[in-house]
């Protein structure tokens, strides 16, 4: 991992069109400003990782899993 030390008000650039700036720092919380093309997806890391993990689990359907799912949803209905 590339490590860069910056003060508040300083920043760095990634490629030609991404600028990251440290806006302020207080009690260990750092506010960061990012300028990037709008089509560039930007997520908080923990949010990104949670969704990536969920997508991975949601993508692994087998015929057997589908049958279990249909049954589970059917049970949901029958339990009314």
């Amino acid at each position, binding site marked *: 991992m590339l490590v860069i030390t910056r003060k508040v008000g300083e920043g760095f650039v990634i490629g030609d069109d991404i600028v990251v700036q440290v806006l302020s720092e207080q009690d260990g919380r750092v506010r960061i400003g990012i300028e990037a093309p709008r*089509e560039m997806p930007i*997520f908080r890391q923990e949010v990104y990782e949670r*969704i990536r993990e969920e997508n991975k689990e949601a993508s692994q359907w087998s015929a057997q*899993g589908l049958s279990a799912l249909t049954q589970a949803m059917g049970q*949901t209905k*029958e339990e009314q």
Partner: protein
Amino acid sequence: MTTIETRFGSIDYDPQNTVTFPEGLIGFTHLREFIVLPKEMTEPLFGLQSVEDGRVAFMLASPVQYFSDYHVMPGKRELDILGIAPGDEFFLLATVTLQEDQQVTLNLAAPIIYTPKTDRAVQMVLETTEYSSRTPLPFRENADDGAAPEAQTVNG
């Protein structure tokens, strides 16, 4: 017609009739083209099968059918990706997961927005939401309610 091998066996599909995720899904950004299984989104539960990787398929459901107060509007960014404008139709969907304890959950933290206008879809990550990526499916009052996805309209 083209044939792909999937976890559900061989599937014939028309390459002209796919749903495109211009950005892919998070963790699957390299997979852009999917087909709807079995055929159309007329069932409460339907599948999106990647045509680029036969091992990857998602099951989707309409969250509004289970959570009537779940409202998500695509933002400018999503509208651009989908190629739609205010007044156009879209469907709000969510991926389905079956947990080890057989609990069915919906990912309400990152719904899928699909538009029939361009046959494109995008996963919209809600960074600040009270909804979980593993929201358990509630019991339904009436199992006979039509639970197939219903179109919504982009606000002006």
